[in-house]
């Protein structure tokens, strides 16, 4: 008779608080849960009554890793509600700012949160001694992303200059030029990460699910487009509630979602599965080198997709800076006309599709908000993955099972406090 009990209280090396619970007896699973225990902050209630100018400032605080994604989704929801059209200059700067966060977030996950599992250590700290080059490289890439965001928005965490309708301050062209050189160097650093990644032994578990991401016919979508699903095709943004179908479960302070199946996946792998043909050349080459081909149904490969997207972020940033440098930047008048109405903003946060949905009154005060977060859409998929994975590994040691489940959850790069918000 074999009694198996895995109880991971507050899983480490993820953002936020969650537990893994598994109890099995004689090969039969009695209990298996991914629990989300994060304190809710009630952002939808906190945003009520706020003037539109302060809304993105508050909404940014939903997440400390992807605050640029939240700020952008928030601003875009307000712009949609007020019927604001953006200039080409604003769009170029917004995309560039967006890439900075994508790069930082992916590097943090790949090298600080995931890599220790493969080196058999508990954190990045021992690697400062044993794998100094890798740690220095990670810090260098992170610093570059921070500096790029600082140039465009004052800072990376809770950005300042990106506002409804435009930018409150423009970057210096000379500084953009200097960052461009460092981006070229970043491609060299990222190639070293690819080399490292190829030596890792990625678990070979597969479970097909529904994959959902933004899709834009013009480019690999991050801040534009409509909803795309591998099961249902293109769905207009205005119908997002028909996709997310949020529901509550008692063991999670974050809401769950489902669409065509029991669960769906969002994030880097979903984006790759839906939009891979729109990646830029170096990112495509890296995908091939990493053995990542669409459709990929292995959640452990999310990290590989993040690495591919890191190349995209750098390559796209270089081309955006070139376009900005050739056009120059000019001060644009930004008069926001407040009106009553509803607007939905959607972006691809590093961890997946993110919706902010706001209703304003005629004075520009917010009357209703709804935010659907990437990780809150992934929680149910994590649960279903665990249910498919555990029977395959049930004969392994308790330690091994625990570690594999930890790695599975970690692969999703969950942003738990964000998901509960």
């Amino acid at each position, binding site marked *: 008779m074999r009694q198996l009990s895995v109880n991971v209280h507050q899983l480490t090396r993820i*953002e936020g608080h969650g537990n893994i619970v598994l109890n099995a007896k004689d090969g039969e699973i009695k209990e298996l849960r991914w629990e989300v225990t994060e*304190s*809710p*902050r*009630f952002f939808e209630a906190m945003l009520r009554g706020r003037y539109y100018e302060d809304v993105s400032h508050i909404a940014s605080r939903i997440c400390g890793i992807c605050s640029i994604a939240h700020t952008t989704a928030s601003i875009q929801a307000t712009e949609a509600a007020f019927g604001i059209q953006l200039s080409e200059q604003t769009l170029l700067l917004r995309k560039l700012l967006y890439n900075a966060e994508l790069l930082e977030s992916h590097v943090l996950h790949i090298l600080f949160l995931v890599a220790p599992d493969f080196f058999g250590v508990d954190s990045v700290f021992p690697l*400062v001694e044993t794998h100094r080059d890798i*740690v220095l490289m990670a810090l*260098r890439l992170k610093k570059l992303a921070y500096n790029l965001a600082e140039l465009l928005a*004052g800072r990376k965490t809770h950005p300042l200059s990106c506002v409804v309708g435009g930018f409150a301050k423009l970057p210096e062209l000379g500084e953009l030029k200097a960052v461009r050189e460092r981006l070229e160097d970043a491609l060299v650093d990222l190639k070293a990460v690819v080399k490292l990644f190829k030596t890792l032994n990625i678990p070979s578990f597969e479970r097909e699910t529904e994959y959902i991401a933004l899709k834009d016919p013009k480019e690999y979508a991050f801040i534009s487009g409509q909803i795309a699903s591998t099961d249902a095709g293109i769905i207009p943004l205005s119908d997002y509630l028909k996709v997310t179908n949020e529901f509550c479960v008692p063991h999670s*302070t974050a809401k769950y979602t489902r669409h065509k199946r029991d669960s769906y996946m969002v994030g880097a792998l979903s984006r790759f599965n839906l939009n891979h043909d729109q990646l830029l050349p170096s990112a495509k080459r890296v995908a091939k080198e990493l053995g990542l081909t669409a459709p990929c149904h292995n959640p452990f490969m999310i990290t590989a997709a993040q690495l591919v997207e890191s190349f995209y972020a750098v390559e796209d940033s270089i081309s955006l800076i070139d376009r900005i440098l050739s056009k120059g930047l000019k001060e644009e008048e930004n008069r926001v006309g407040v009106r009553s109405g509803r607007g939905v903003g959607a972006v691809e946060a590093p961890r997946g599709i993110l919706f902010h949905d706001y209703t304003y009154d005629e004075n520009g005060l917010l009357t209703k908000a709804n935010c659907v977060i990437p990780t809150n859409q992934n929680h149910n998929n994590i649960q279903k993955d665990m249910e498919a994975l555990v029977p395959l590994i049930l004969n392994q040691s308790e330690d091994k099972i625990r570690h594999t489940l930890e790695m599975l959850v970690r692969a999703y790069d969950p942003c738990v406090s964000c998901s509960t918000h």
Partner: protein
Amino acid sequence: MKPKVAFFDFTSCEGCQLDALNLTGEELTDLLNAVDVVNFREVKTQREDNYDVAFIEGSITRESEIPRLQKIRNQAKVLIALGACACIGGVNCLKNHLPMEEVKQIVYGKDAKYYDTIPARPVNAVVPVDYYVRGCPPLPAELLKVIKALLLGKKPEIPNHPVCVECKMAGNICVFERGTTCLGPVTRAGCGAICVTSGRHCWGCRGLVDEPNIDSEKDILKKYGLTVEQVVEKFKIYDTYVEVLR
């Protein structure tokens, strides 16, 4: 013997802890040579319950967080509040303007019964705090400054003059000249007036200076045709002592 340092998160976005990792290789090496990081759930798996210095991120918004925080206070020789939520309550206090039942209803509807919450409060409303690293988020440089001061056995020096002083030094045009309300005149400096420098206004995330010149802020508001109500609305975002201005 290196001091043992622990990071703990309560109700927050975890941005303060993550920004603490925005270091250069040299800074990280120096830091790890000087302290032992023994507890840091977000980036580290092994945990140790024996530590000297505890950094607390986040505000307290659930009953269950109170005993957890008290236990940390009992263990730590030095307890430091990290960031606006821990220092002054932060944005989480925005929900305090509504009854908790209504707040839960707005977010969870018919399932509100599953979840518990209490009005948000800063760390010092529950246990004594030794030092404050302010801001939303704090500047990594200030965090390093506090750690360095502690290692030298000194009291970390945090400015007690208003943001306006740093804003002038940064060469910014006064926000009031643009007809916008700003909390710079009464907010504690140390941020280099980063928000104004980035084209915005001060939201007061670092809390008030010890003796805010409220009359002066009121005079400024009057001069520029702005109202106390407008500024109180701005204060509400970090809930920095709304009552003071009334």
